[in-house]
């Protein structure tokens, strides 16, 4: 009889465990990110995570233009709709200040959640700093982008031109190409791409938005000189550039219409792909510089919303996605640049993606756009100002002066 009771209790416990397991396995995580080939590759990779853990992952991949709005509305409304959100570095301080995100400091120390593959010290320290707000870690960096100059080696050598590096060399090459009907393809559409390129050019010239005390200081000699260079460069650009974003420039490069252009690292894989007409003929370098090469850094971070219904499972996924295995697998698929130092040095990757040395060079001296509370106002005003310069609607100095007058009070 005792045996029977014991067996019954054991069966009950086992049944309970089974039910608990079944519940854990029935967890569905919803993740938010932008749509595109990278998202498709990631979705494919996620099947492996689902298989390993039994956790289902649903990806809500939407257009980049609507991503911030959708994430914000979800988290502000505490809908619990997302368990993991992909956050650009410029949005992160605001999300954290609004209480949208869950601090990760305790999670990264918990080896039961991180798994064996996770090595926190392997992340680039500068990128961890970007994901830290008021001493708390709110995300883990995963996808880095920086603008890169691309040139068609064949076209340039046939025209007797060398690959440009400096401002003057780039202007000369673009001018020569422009006289033959093409020019340099630029992301000069009114938008953040133009500002990302401009600030990298400006920092290579010793300029920046702010003075040493942190006040807005746009009308400096260096800034005006960079704005004049931007105007001159647009003057020898391909027709259409003033309404082009990075993806339009990349298409023009990919199909051989543009012999020279400024694209972004996340799109470069397409240039070496099967559909590309220029695969194997393209050279890569950091953006043109005046004094020293400089890059603009854009980092995407995986973060857990404060209202996530499954924070522990979400962190398991976060740790898996930013782990060495998943990062290398994605890098091998599409040449993404991750935040793990060991993966970036991986010989297999370096041999497969010819632009990685140029990206490494650009990143060795790079900075992000400002990440203060009023930074979006500055970006929006700079987008309009640079578009005015590009289209000849305003002189470079006047355009910068207008932004300075408009926003000086916001950056005291």
């Amino acid at each position, binding site marked *: 009889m005792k045996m029977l009771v014991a067996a019954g209790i054991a069966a009950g416990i086992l049944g309970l465990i089974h039910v608990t397991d079944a519940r854990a396995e029935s967890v569905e995580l919803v993740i938010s990110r932008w749509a595109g080939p990278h998202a498709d590759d990631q979705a494919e990779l996620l099947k492996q995570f689902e298989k390993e853990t039994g956790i289902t992952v649903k990806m809500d991949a939407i257009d980049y*233009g609507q991503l*911030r*709005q959708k994430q*914000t*509305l979800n*988290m*502000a409304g505490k809908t619990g709709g997302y368990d993991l959100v992909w956050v650009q570095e410029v949005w992160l301080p*605001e999300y954290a200040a*609004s*209480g*949208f995100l869950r601090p990760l400091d305790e999670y990264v120390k918990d080896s039961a959640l991180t798994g064996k593959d996770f090595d926190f010290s392997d992340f680039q320290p500068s990128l961890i700093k970007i994901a830290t707000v008021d001493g708390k870690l709110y995300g883990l960096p995963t996808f880095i982008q920086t603008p890169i100059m691309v040139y068609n080696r064949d076209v340039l050598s046939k025209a007797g031109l060398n690959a440009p590096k400096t401002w003057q060399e780039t202007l000369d090459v673009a001018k020569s190409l422009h006289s033959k009907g093409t020019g340099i393809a630029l992301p000069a*559409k*009114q*938008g953040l791409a133009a500002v990302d390129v401009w600030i990298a050019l400006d920092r290579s010239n010793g300029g920046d938005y702010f003075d040493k005390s942190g006040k807005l200081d746009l009308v400096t000699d260096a800034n005006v000189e960079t704005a004049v260079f931007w105007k001159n460069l647009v003057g020898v650009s*391909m*027709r*259409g*550039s*003033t*309404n082009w974003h990075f993806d*339009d420039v990349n298409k*023009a490069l990919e199909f051989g*219409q543009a012999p020279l252009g400024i694209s972004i690292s996340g799109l470069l894989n397409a240039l070496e792909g099967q559909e590309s007409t220029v695969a194997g003929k393209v050279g890569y370098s950091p953006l043109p510089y005046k004094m020293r090469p400089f890059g603009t850094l854009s980092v995407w971070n995986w973060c857990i919303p404060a209202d996530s219904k499954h924070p522990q499972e979400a962190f398991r996924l976060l740790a898996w996605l930013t782990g060495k295995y998943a990062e290398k697998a994605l890098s091998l698929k599409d040449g993404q640049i991750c935040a793990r130092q060991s993966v970036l040095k991986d010989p297999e990757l370096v041999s497969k993606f010819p632009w990685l040395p140029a990206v490494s060079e650009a990143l060795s001296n790079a900075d992000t756009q400002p990440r203060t509370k009023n930074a*979006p*106002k500055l*970006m*929006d005003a700079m*987008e*309009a100002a640079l*578009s*005015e310069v*590009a*289209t000849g*609607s*305003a002189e470079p100095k006047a355009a910068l002066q207008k932004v300075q007058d408009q926003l000086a009070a916001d950056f005291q």
Partner: protein
Amino acid sequence: VSTSAETLPRIKPLNSSGCRRWFRKELLAASLILPAAAVVFAAMLIPLVYALWMSLFNYRIGGETKGAFIFFGNYLRFFQDPEAILSLGITLVFTFGAVIAEIVLGIGIAILLRSVPNRIGKVLRGLYCMPLLISPIIVGLIWRYLYDPTYGLAYYLLGLFGLSNAFGGLQEPSSAIFCVMLADIWETTPFVLLCATAGLANIPSDLYEASTIDGASAGQRLLYITLPMLRKVIAVVLIIRGTDAFRVFDLIYALTGGGPANSTLSLSIYAFKKGFVENQMGYAMAIAIITMIILIALFGPLMKALYART
């Protein structure tokens, strides 16, 4: 002035069963209207009142309860903000330009199609109406590529006549708004065409026959019969298309994003940027309310006149 009981009209008092009947009848009517009224209240009035209330605050998304009450500060700011005034001007130019062109073209095509054999007219009407089935954001993407100087059909066709350099397209501030208007005209003229076709079908053919016997020319028939008889249709189209065009967002967002140099910055795009890019939600709400007030001022009298005549 004194009123006595004798001077008041005598109302027949209801007995208790009449009272119950009346109450039941009213209750039934009220209970039938209630669901619709509740939907209107919940879906329309609550968000509107909320937007109106929040437009009096300076707040960010997620900080709704921490916002500073600034009364009409956001509304005053709008009229002192050069970019806001610019966006209002651009929106007015877009609305009047696009809607007038759509009405002229829509009615013109409807009249022309009436004169072709019925079977051909039906086929052509179906073809002309196809753009209506495409979402505005896709229309924006289609036209963005049509206007592209490297791949676009527009530049290719202009190039055949040596005119490609004369066209600024979406690249130049002077031409961008007209390019956006053209895309909108392409998409929404079919709507006017459909409305005008329905209106034309209601005009008695005797009027045309009589006027032809009286020696009226085609122009006179258009001016004195067709257009006056289409008056209500035109008014309805004007209200629907006018309010729609004034709130244009997706088409411009896909085509230009408001550029170049803010030359296509509509009020809706401006409100979106202020709200979701710069996180100034109170100001964005105020811009939305101002948009609504301008729409009421522009189209309210027309709607009132239409209701009065109906």
